[in-house]
């Protein structure tokens, strides 16, 4: 990875004093993950450039890494080549004194504003050129960015997420260094393979006034604090690797989109989690609450005491059920162990009082298998679950739940596809979540639920959830299937 800094303020070689590097020498520093070399490709009075070249040891890098989006991610890795948090670390190691604004020999120099240009030949910009400009332009930089194509042989692939970037301003060297130091990892927004959370906090605290007043301050801070996925998620990732091109962080949760994602940052323009928020964030949360209320209401009305939440995800509905004493036995079932672990944390099962703890159980199970543990309950909820099951496997789910578990009441909710037209962010025909295998309009849902009811001796009653559009209907549809006495 490479960074060059060019000064065009004569005498440009003052850069050597500022950076404490002699233009006639090559300086090499061990930065832990490889070697950083500082040298001057040009050193004239009008124009002086220092290059910081970091040679990352790719083998050592692998040994530090903790997995990635697919199993070989650590081996076939852009880290050695792109400006990222590694470069920030090297920057601090090599230019630490300059970063602090010190210069013993020429104490007046650090406060001088110079015409400076920093070039980053490969800068990852997750969030695109727009974010790049939003980060640097408020700080007074002129930004030039040229996207790097993925492969000229395959033009249909388009551009890579990397840009060849130059930022120029008349500014102090220490400001340029400090801002690069913080903003490079923000733009990269990848896993910090080596930074502990404490270090990041310190970093944000130390970024001084410019960050406090930056319009993108919150996004900058949030991107630092991205969590790493747990080990359980990695076991899943090994299975879903090459076929999906990487594990979707919400993928472990069959109801990831709608039962709350781990990342609250859905407003972040560059965040992957935000891209899935359809309907848009605020409405999304409101609809989720409406759905919970509707399901809880229908359950309560059914008189059920022993209930199953099938596909419970991280346990939002379970939390609601616990609050109502009518529900004496509550069982959350999910195919994902990771989701159940999240549910246990959300519900604070470990510290729950014994009497309350006795009311709730979490089970791993899959709804396309027979499961005798699920027999004999008063009610079962399938809240935003069926659309995560392939259509040709829905018969197995029907059999397992209606044919075998056969609770007295089954409550099903699913998106109303007709309503999708009301979401401006959603392309026509697109679905609300990448894992949805289908989305039904009202007629399709009624036909299915009606047929299921008829086959298994239930009656079906339908309710809208959310504000009903005169033509498109409600955003969510709900069916209460009651077993005929």
């Amino acid at each position, binding site marked *: 990875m490479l960074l060059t800094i060019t000064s065009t303020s004569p005498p440009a070689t003052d850069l050597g004093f500022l950076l404490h590097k002699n233009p006639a020498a090559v300086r090499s520093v061990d930065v832990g993950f490889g070697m950083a070399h500082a040298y001057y490709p040009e050193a004239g009075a009008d124009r002086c450039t220092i290059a910081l070249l970091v040679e990352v040891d790719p083998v050592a890098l692998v040994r530090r890494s903790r997995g990635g989006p697919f199993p070989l991610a650590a081996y076939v890795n852009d880290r050695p080549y792109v400006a990222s948090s590694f470069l920030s670390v090297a920057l601090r190691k090599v230019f630490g004194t300059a970063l602090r604004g010190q210069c013993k020999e020429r104490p007046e120099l650090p406060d001088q504003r110079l015409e400076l240009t920093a070039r980053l030949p*490969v800068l990852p910009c997750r969030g695109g050129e727009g974010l790049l400009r939003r980060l640097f332009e408020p700080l007074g930089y002129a930004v030039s960015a040229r996207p790097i194509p993925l492969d000229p042989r395959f033009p249909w692939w388009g551009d890579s997420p990397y840009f060849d970037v130059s930022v120029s301003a008349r500014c102090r060297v220490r400001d340029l260094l400090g801002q690069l130091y913080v903003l490079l990892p923000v733009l990269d927004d990848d896993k910090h393979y080596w930074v502990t959370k404490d270090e990041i906090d310190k970093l944000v605290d130390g970024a001084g006034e410019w960050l406090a007043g930056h319009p993108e301050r919150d996004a900058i801070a949030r991107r630092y604090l991205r969590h790493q996925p747990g080990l359980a998620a990695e076991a899943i990732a090994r299975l879903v690797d090459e076929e999906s091109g*990487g594990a979707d962080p919400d993928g472990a949760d069959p109801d990831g989109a709608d039962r709350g994602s781990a990342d609250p940052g859905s407003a972040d323009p560059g965040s992957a989690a935000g891209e899935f928020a359809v309907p848009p964030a605020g409405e999304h949360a409101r609809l989720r609450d409406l759905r919970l209320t509707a399901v809880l209401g229908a359950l309560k009305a059914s008189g059920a005491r022993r209930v199953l939440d099938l596909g419970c995800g991280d346990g939002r509905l379970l939390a609601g059920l616990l609050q109502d004493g009518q529900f004496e036995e509550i069982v959350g079932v999910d195919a994902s162990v990771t989701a159940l672990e999240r549910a246990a944390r959300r519900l604070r099962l470990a510290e729950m009082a014994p009497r309350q703890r006795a009311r709730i159980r979490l089970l791993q199970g899959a709804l396309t298998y027979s499961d005798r543990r699920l027999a004999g309950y008063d009610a079962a909820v399938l809240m935003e679950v069926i659309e995560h099951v392939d259509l040709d496997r829905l018969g197995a789910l029907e059999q397992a739940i*209606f044919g075998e578990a056969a609770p007295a009441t089954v409550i099903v909710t699913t998106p109303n596809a007709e309503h999708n037209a009301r979401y401006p962010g959603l392309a026509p025909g697109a679905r609300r979540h990448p894992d949805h295998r289908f989305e039904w309009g009202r007629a399709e849902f009624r036909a299915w639920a009606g047929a299921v009811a008829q086959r298994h001796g239930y009656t079906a009653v339908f309710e809208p959830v959310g504000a009903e559009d005169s033509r498109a209907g409600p955003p969510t549809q709900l069916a209460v299937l009651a077993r005929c006495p």
Partner: protein
Amino acid sequence: MTTIKIPELCLVALVGVTGSGKSTFAARHFRPTEVLSSDFFRGLVGDDENDQSVTTEAFEALHVVAAKRLAIGRLTVIDATSVQPEARRPLVALAREHHVLPVAIVLDIGEKTCIERNAARPDRSFGPGVVRRQHGMLARSIRQLEREGFRRVFVLRGEAEVDAAQIVRERAWTDRSDARGPFDIIGDVHGCHGELSDLLDSLGYLPASDGARRHPAGRTAVFLGDLVDRGPDTPGVLAEVMAMAAAGSALCVPGNHESKLLRALRGRDVKISHGLAESLAQLQAGPAEFRTQVIAYLDGLISHYVLDGGRLVVAHAGLREEMHGRASAAVRAFALYGETTGETDELGLPVRYPWAQDYRGKAAVVYGHTPVPVPVWVNNTICLDTGCVFGGSLTALRYPERELVSVPARRVYYEPARPLAPPAVTAAGAGARAGAAAGIMAEAGPAAGPAAGAAAGGDAGAGAAAEAGAGAAAEGGVANADGRMLDVADVLGRRGIETRLRGRVSVPEENAAAALEVMSRFAVDPRWLIYLPPTMAPVPASSRPGLLEHPGDALAAFRRDHVQRVVCEEKHMGSRAIAVVCRTPEAARDWFGAAGTGAEGTGAEGTGIVYTRTGRRFFTSAGMEEALLSRLRGALDATGMWNELGDWAALDCEILPWSLKADELISGHYAAVGAAAVAGLSAAAGTLDAARARGLEVAGLGERTAERLRAAESFVRAYRPYVWPVSSLDDVRLAPFQVLAGSTGTCFGRDHEWHMKAAERLAGADPLIATTRYLVADLADPGVEAAVAVWWEELTGAGGEGMVVKPAEPITRGRHGIAQPGIKCRGPEYLRIIYGPEYTVAGNLARLRERNLGRKRSLASSEFALGVEALERFVCREPAFRVHECVFGVLALESKPVDPRL
């Protein structure tokens, strides 16, 4: 001398006051581990064998251990005083719960002796009062024991009798595992003597001079009960069977009708219904002497038999696994009446529970009782009652051949209580097999919810048999095609799967958990998922300069394993795929339960499938899948390969290009890394050139950077051959490299050269199909290394991924079990895709050579064993769960962490 005869498996309660010598007696007659002593358990839970304050806890623990022993079939002796009825009650309950006989052996020793013995033991502080009190209770107990439920009671009075007693363990009456057959197992006859004669004729049982039929080849007929009632000639049937039984050419288990007839014949007050009247009238018309013989014969019938070394169980109404070979009232009731839920349906008939659906036992269970249109294997159980008396047929199962032999009823002798056509709601409720009768729903179909289950309320209600038969033959013929029968309990938790190649393969709980999620969320219908390919280990790292892998090391590895001949196969770089293609829609229905019609979502679809190595549907476009399958079917037609493979074929393939499935991964990751590397290193090289021009000392850095740039450019060149746009099937290549199986059997016994030739034949029939280049190498040939190396260099030099070296026989016994099924040896340029662009740069390769193959090799072996097992089970039409557990096991093992570069 008293001889105490006890069954091999039973619960023995020693009853006697403290000091009566129970422990000594137990030690003399039983193995130490068979004896559970209350004193020992007091010590176990409370540190002191004499601490009476922990008695409750000690007995709880004792009962738990006793229950575990009985559950797995171990004789258990309870060494406690057991002089109080309340102490004995849980023992009788325990015995009943586990269907073993409770036996009491009472040691009735004089009070005085016991008091003396206690006094002689320093650890016992009982006063004589305790002994006297216990003795009083014992005296009262002796008379009650049988009433309490002890089925055998032995009382030994005095020391001499105790010392002289002998214990003899007897085989259970039900245990006829020494009878190896072969057998002809015959379903419910119900007085249809004419049809029975027809059937015995066609089975080859010839009448002898004594009037008893015998089979010239020594086969044994096994009657499943319900010989009597309803039909025209119950006495004839009884006489036939009794004669054969006496001659040793038949065995018979009782049915519910025999049980009721016996009570009637003994003059008990029974309701004369369900055809009993006919039997009584027919018997009444005959001699009284015959009636006496019938009473004696029926009275001697044993509830069920365990035959053929435990591999076969026969019982009239079936038997759950935990009841096999056991004896209790519940076992007898189950064997006679089957399992009912206790509910009754709208006709007042009992609702039957489909126990066979839950059956997971190893023994085949053959039974009758509930008329079915056509016998169907369900989880290794089969019902042979084909409703002869209702106008169906009389059926026999030839065992071990597992062939069905059937003769039609000459006419309808008895009208069934239930109308022939099942109610409409029942058919819909079952959701699947249009035309299947009520009986088959209840037995075979878990789909049969309460409504459908009710349809077959015991034999009395059935009889939908005859008419519905034809439909079910096609629809219901294959139990293992029924994906609905998979139970989460068959896959969750820590599991061990018995494989023919590698013994027991363990699947850890956490890996099963991961697999459940992936299987349930992404995998295709389990009826199609009959195999998942094993992972493959690479060669041991090469010590040759500049190379990480070299074919010489693969040959060496096989030579170490005493493999003589190998086949080196070109490794295509695409995506792994399993293609299953059926010759006809009928074959798809027969083997995979594929239903083009029928209720929504209850049948697998289509006439084949293509899925990935993790069981996902390969093509997102159904049209492309269908087109590929139809071309593949055409190639199989054209080459005449169906003649060898039968009705369907499963092929292990690579589908090209890689970018078809992995476009996002290649562009988003590989191309991105390549673009970043080339751009970044080019820029760096530029600055270094400028610096060098200024006279700076950057020569070393400059050279390294130039080398890294060359590596980055090579990396980009490495993935490019695997990318091309696909707009239709014309842009796709299918490279089959192993024929896995067909309906005629698996192909693991075929030489890999045969597989390669098969692929060539297919490729010759359709340009969609790509050949795989290969080289057969004899490891004894001194020039083999060089020849293989040259060939490999050619392949990889032209941008190929590399090759796979396989033992010529897919299943080859090596020095330690089965030799690796394949070892991959990848080309140096391809490995950039795996190890990163710069793996060849100075200093990197040496460190990368340290790689541990052990785990990968072990996984490859286990997964191969599971895959072979899955297919072998599938082609033998074993139950669905038996196939699925293997496939699931492969997926679970694939979730184990392993170095992804291998």
